[in-house]
């Protein structure tokens, strides 16, 4: 698990500024690194807190959907993964899918292979610890 910050995307922030509106507060989220997820998924409560409307639609297969892919809304967001005093990993404009059944499992997001493609993930099961470097 890692902490991440979810915020409105850069272009949306500019649009809000042009409209004379303040950007909503950055949302802190608990994310589960999931190499079994082809894309990053976030609980809809985060998008609601950011006042977002979907800007995309995709399809998704999960154990809950059975064999028929289901439509899922996607949202443009900015994501920042902090790294202590070091440079954070930043995605200023990323399409993330909306998915439910996270919060009951103790996290708000799945960090999928779209983000992990920018990283090196090392998992030592014996110690146990993992590192995500970028």
């Amino acid at each position, binding site marked *: 698990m890692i902490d991440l910050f979810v915020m409105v995307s850069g272009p*949306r922030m500019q649009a809000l500024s042009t409209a004379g509106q303040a950007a909503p507060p950055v949302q802190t989220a608990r994310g589960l690194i999931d190499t079994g997820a082809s894309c990053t998924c976030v609980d809809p409560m985060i998008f609601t807190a950011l006042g977002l409307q979907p800007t995309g*639609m995709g*399809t998704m297969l999960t154990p809950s959907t059975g064999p028929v892919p289901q439509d899922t809304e996607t949202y443009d967001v900015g994501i920042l993964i902090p790294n202590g005093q070091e440079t954070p990993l930043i995605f200023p404009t990323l399409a993330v899918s909306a998915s439910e059944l996270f919060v009951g499992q103790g996290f708000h997001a799945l960090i999928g292979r779209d983000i992990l493609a920018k990283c090196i993930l090392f998992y030592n099961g014996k110690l146990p610890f993992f590192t995500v470097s970028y």
Partner: protein
Amino acid sequence: MALEKEMATYHAKLPELKEHEGKYVLIHDDQIVDFFAAYEDAIKAGYQQFQLGPFLVKRVSAIETVQHITRNILPYSSARTA
């Protein structure tokens, strides 16, 4: 449902979009607005032209890319929860 009209436009126009396979199309209502090589450019254009109103950015693909998630989660669509 959010973006219902835009998705209908995408599906109706898809046969004409073949030459733009892999690019990101910006759609508003029943209009194909433009095509972009990068997702961020399409999103930027969408907010510049439509401000905080609805628009769709979708990667043009003759065969829809399906995201695969091994965790037991439920894809969210406001149409299903309305």
